């Protein structure tokens, strides 16, 4: 009989404990209320973006004498506002820019200006990134239809005069990176 009472007491205890555990889980889970209040810090890290547009080929007029420098205005968009530019020549010898006829070469130099007109100039070396340049458009990837920089090519008179008559070409690859 005592054994039966004991069993009954244990069963009752377990049932009570189970209901309390269920109540505990109900209390922690809850459901969202209409006036629930919380706070959250929202952080977004926006990557730097850059683009270069408005590039045109630079073709000098045929001439027996050294042509005057030519410049091509371009649009550089960089949301930090500054950037580096790395302009490399397909026919470079070391850091020297060269035009090639296939058998002969004419040296030339490349300068970068931080404005469509005027501005500060940076002399470039083929395959080497420039120091940080300011003046990029920070809001419009198309510079609002204008230009924020220009690339200038100046042919070396010494190698031009001594080069045989021919057509000389090169391809410049321009890499602009935000800084």
């Amino acid at each position, binding site marked *: 009989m005592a054994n039966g009472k004991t069993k009954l007491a244990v069963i009752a205890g377990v049932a009570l*404990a189970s209901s309390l555990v269920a109540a505990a889980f109900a209390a922690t889970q809850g459901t969202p209320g209409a006036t629930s209040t919380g706070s959250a810090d929202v952080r977004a890290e926006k990557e730097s973006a850059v683009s270069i547009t408005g590039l045109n080929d630079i073709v000098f007029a045929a001439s027996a004498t050294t042509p005057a420098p030519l410049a091509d205005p371009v649009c550089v968009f960089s949301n930090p506002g500054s950037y580096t530019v790395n302009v490399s020549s397909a026919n470079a010898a070391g850091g020297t820019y060269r035009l090639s006829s296939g058998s002969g070469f004419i040296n030339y130099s490349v300068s970068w200006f931080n404005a469509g007109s005027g501005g500060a100039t940076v002399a470039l070396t083929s395959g080497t990134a420039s120091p940080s340049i300011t003046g990029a458009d920070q809001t419009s990837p198309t510079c609002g239809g204008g230009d924020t920089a220009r690339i200038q090519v100046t042919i070396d008179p010494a190698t031009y005069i001594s080069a045989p008559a021919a057509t000389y070409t090169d391809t*410049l690859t321009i890499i602009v990176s935000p800084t």
Partner: protein
Amino acid sequence: MQSRRILVLVAAAVATLSIAAFSAADRPMAGERPGITVGVTKLPPDKPATGQVAVGVTKLAS
């Protein structure tokens, strides 16, 4: 006597579970945590832009 002991044990178990229940209730729920930081980092950053320009000149005989 044995029934009494059992009842004491049950009472102790109930007390323990009650404490556990209150502790659980005090814990913040997922939707109630203050100061949650939500962030996003888009990779890769600082992707460069590239372009190409042809340069050409025809040297005439002097």
